[in-house]
């Protein structure tokens, strides 16, 4: 039976994992390579790392960090943040990423999804979608939720699938960072409209939130703070889910 994936997410600047709400009050949580090694050993099913400050200067260090992490883990690694074109994708795959996640570059230029999946295979192209409610509609947003695009969330989700995305990393900007749980209604809307895997992101604060995330038919559950702060160990989340009847890898 296919297991529900528990995915810690590392928001990275250069080689440090950071936490900040809406890019303010950024706090260093630890060394990215050390944290990645720890999560791989302690039962993470996959690892996600995002360059949250992909400036030209920081990029080189970030790529080196991807290389270093790929060397110390033996679970799949998804890397995103600051991916603007095909060259960035190739660079990250060469650095050791198994999957690359594209966000605003895909919104700007949807053809990039098609080009990337033809070049590298759908299985390594993840499209990250940030969604937000606006005037009673679910819209696609960019720039950390600050810019609302014209795209309807569900239309876009279907489109990225048809363009060849292998997976959707779905973050609700309405619930991200506040630890009140995943955005179940938004996630359900997405999972019921696509047939590719969806990773739920944004809002986990307690164990029950993971279970509710599973009920949305998302096959991957992504979390950051609850793991980085030490509130939960990956194993304890999985044991909890197993007791609830959710298939997990223990």
């Amino acid at each position, binding site marked *: *039976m*296919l*297991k*529900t*994936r528990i995915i810690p997410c590392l928001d990275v600047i250069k080689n440090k994992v950071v936490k900040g709400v809406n890019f303010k009050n950024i706090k260093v949580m630890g060394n990215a390579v050390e944290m990645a090694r720890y999560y*791989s050993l302690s039962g993470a*099913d*996959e690892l996600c790392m995002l360059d949250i400050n992909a400036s030209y200067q920081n990029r080189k260090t970030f790529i080196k960090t991807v290389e270093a992490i*790929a*060397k110390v883990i*033996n*679970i*799949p690694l998804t890397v995103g943040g600051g991916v603007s074109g095909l060259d960035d994708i190739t660079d990250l*795959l*060469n650095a*050791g990423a*198994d999957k690359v996640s594209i966000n605003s570059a895909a919104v700007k230029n949807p053809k990039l999804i098609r080009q990337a999946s033809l070049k*590298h*295979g*759908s*299985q*390594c192209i993840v499209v990250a979608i940030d969604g937000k409610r606006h005037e009673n509609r679910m819209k696609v947003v960019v720039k950390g939720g600050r810019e609302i695009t014209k795209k309807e969330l569900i239309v876009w989700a279907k489109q990225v699938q048809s363009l060849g995305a*292998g*997976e959707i990393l779905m973050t609700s900007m309405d619930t991200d960072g506040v630890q009140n749980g995943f955005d179940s209604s938004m996630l359900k809307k997405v999972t019921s409209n696509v*047939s*590719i*895997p969806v990773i739920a992101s944004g809002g986990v604060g307690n164990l029950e939130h993971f279970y509710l995330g599973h009920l949305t038919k998302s*096959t*991957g559950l992504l979390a950051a703070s609850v793991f980085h702060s030490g509130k939960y160990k990956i194993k304890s989340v999985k044991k909890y889910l197993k007791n609830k009847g959710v298939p997990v*890898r223990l």
Partner: protein
Amino acid sequence: MKKKVIGLIDGQSGNIGSINKAIKEIIKGRPYQLKIIRGEFDYSLFNKIILPGQGAYATLISNLKKLKIYKPLKIYLENNCSYLGICVGMQILSDQGYEERTTKGLGIIAGEIKKFKSKKLIIPHMGWNSIRLKKEDSIITNNLDNKDFYFVHSYIFQNINKSNVLANTHYGKKFPSIIKKGNIYGVQFHPEKSHKYGLNLIKNYILK
């Protein structure tokens, strides 16, 4: 003592970093050496060959042909020399694949590569799933039965002779996840990304 030579084929189908790293860890301090195969090669120099693959069947076959790896590899396999194909590296052992376009395979293990059919399934089959062992073998020992391995694929090996199946996995339906014919092995999952049990399998393959 003469070192045994492990060949790792870079078919430009996904990155070979993880498998490269896994093999190096395993052979460290042991009488083995690793050679990366990137073009035409003398198959008589290799004791074992590993081919990891991601992406499409048609792409991998055409890459191997372009790189002049296809012919020596086919002769190597026709002589029942030791091989481990991972994911698409396993699939191309079949007679034919239907991903992107109909493509003739290496024709080593009878069967065809077809897409998962059910409309209800989330495709690709992506994530950790367990294997059910049918026959114990040197690469897949009893302690790996029912363990989880990492899968990413939309196509499966079909119409295979049952005697070539070492393990099955269930996703919508049962499909072969480890196959074998003589000294030739194929695994549908990615052992190099499957944590300790994956490494265990690669180690079994290399050392036994």
